[in-house]
């Protein structure tokens, strides 16, 4: 979950070698799991991604405190993160929950599991990666059309 982005985030903002980043990722994930089990995530206001990334950042800062080398973040991920759960996001979330097949699976494989079009074609038994690409494009266009209408109905456009 978010492994690639986590590694890219740490690499961009801290001087840490790749093996250490993977260790930090695993430690952060275990800490996340422990917090879930301890009931600390019942009232999570930020996204899970933000939470996981902030655990990772704190772990690195704790490690670097020992060597008294505190690096200024070149690109503060958290400063730009908007965790406000606006009406638009709520409408979009409800629409996504209502997604039918095959769009639900195709888009989850692409955007969440970060699968290639070849892998998606295999999973969906499509003739080729191009078919998977076309399907994904059709699904996204449909969603964007529905979303535009819903935003318009709510006076958000």
């Amino acid at each position, binding site marked *: *979950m978010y*492994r690639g982005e986590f590694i890219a985030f740490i690499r961009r903002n801290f001087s840490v070698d790749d093996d250490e980043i*993977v260790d930090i990722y*695993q430690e952060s*994930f*275990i800490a*996340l*799991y*422990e917090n*879930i*089990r301890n009931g600390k*995530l019942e009232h999570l206001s930020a*996204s*899970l*991604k933000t939470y996981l990334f902030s655990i990772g950042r704190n772990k690195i800062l704790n490690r670097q405190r020992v060597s008294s080398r505190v690096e200024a973040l070149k690109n503060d991920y958290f400063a730009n993160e908007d965790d406000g759960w606006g009406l*638009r*996001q709520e409408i*979009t*979330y409800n*629409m*996504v*929950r209502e997604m*039918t*097949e*095959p*769009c639900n699976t*195709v*888009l*989850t494989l692409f*955007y*969440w599991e970060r699968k290639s079009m070849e892998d998606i074609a295999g999973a969906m*038994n*499509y*003739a*080729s*990666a*191009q*078919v998977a*690409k*076309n*399907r*994904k*494009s*059709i*699904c*996204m266009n449909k*969603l*964007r059309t529905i*979303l*535009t209408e819903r935003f318009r109905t709510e006076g958000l456009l």
Partner: protein
Amino acid sequence: MENKYTTEELIDRYINDELLSDERAAFERQMKDSPELAGKVELTRHIVNAIECKCEREALAEMSDIDSKEKFQHILRQSEQKHRPAVRRMALRRWILAPVSVAAVIVLVVVGFLPRYSTAELFTMSYQTPLYESLVSRGGIELEPPLLELLDYAAERYEAGDMTAAMKAYDKAAVYSPELPDNARFYRAVAMNETGHIKQAAEEFTLIINDKESEFAEDALWQQALICLRVGERKKAAKLLTEIKAEGGFYSVEAAGLLSRLHKKLFF
């Protein structure tokens, strides 16, 4: 500068921060000039965030079900194994130079005459799911309600990209009435092809091609040529594409282009 990505791919790369700095700057200029593009990007961001949120909640629920830390660590370690690159070894041998050079030239000549593109590559480059068009079928045949409902459902599933459901609905309709309308026969064959029932699809397309009154004969011939590529029948594909090109119809330009790539050699 030639665009190597489609607009959809550019949008995805932009929101995932995967564009190079000059690509990103160029894309942002495009967005500034096109409110429509900027709107599309914004909607995509909302949708991707919502998908992530939905999947996060599902993942959270899954993680809550793992009842011990040791089990969780084990799952994490197993997952990490997939990301470790395999260690490869390159073994080097010494060859005597002259025979190797001669062999290399022979191989080069032989290989040079091999086709530039495999049939699988040509199929991938050329295939697109035909868009559903609800054309009026010939003869103005009155369809009975159960058949009409089945066909409407099949069409709806086809348009949604659910080819398995579409094919099943068309199959049911065919049992109900062996004389399916023209368009239903065609889209049924497409659904068969897309769900891997290639032989049946080819048989259906052949029937449509041989039906002189069918409005989909030209489309079926094109699909048949692509099926030949898909299954590796190079010569048969070339024959069909030559026929399509000669007819000068809707697909003649595409057929000409595909024929050219089909005959292209690797080096010569």
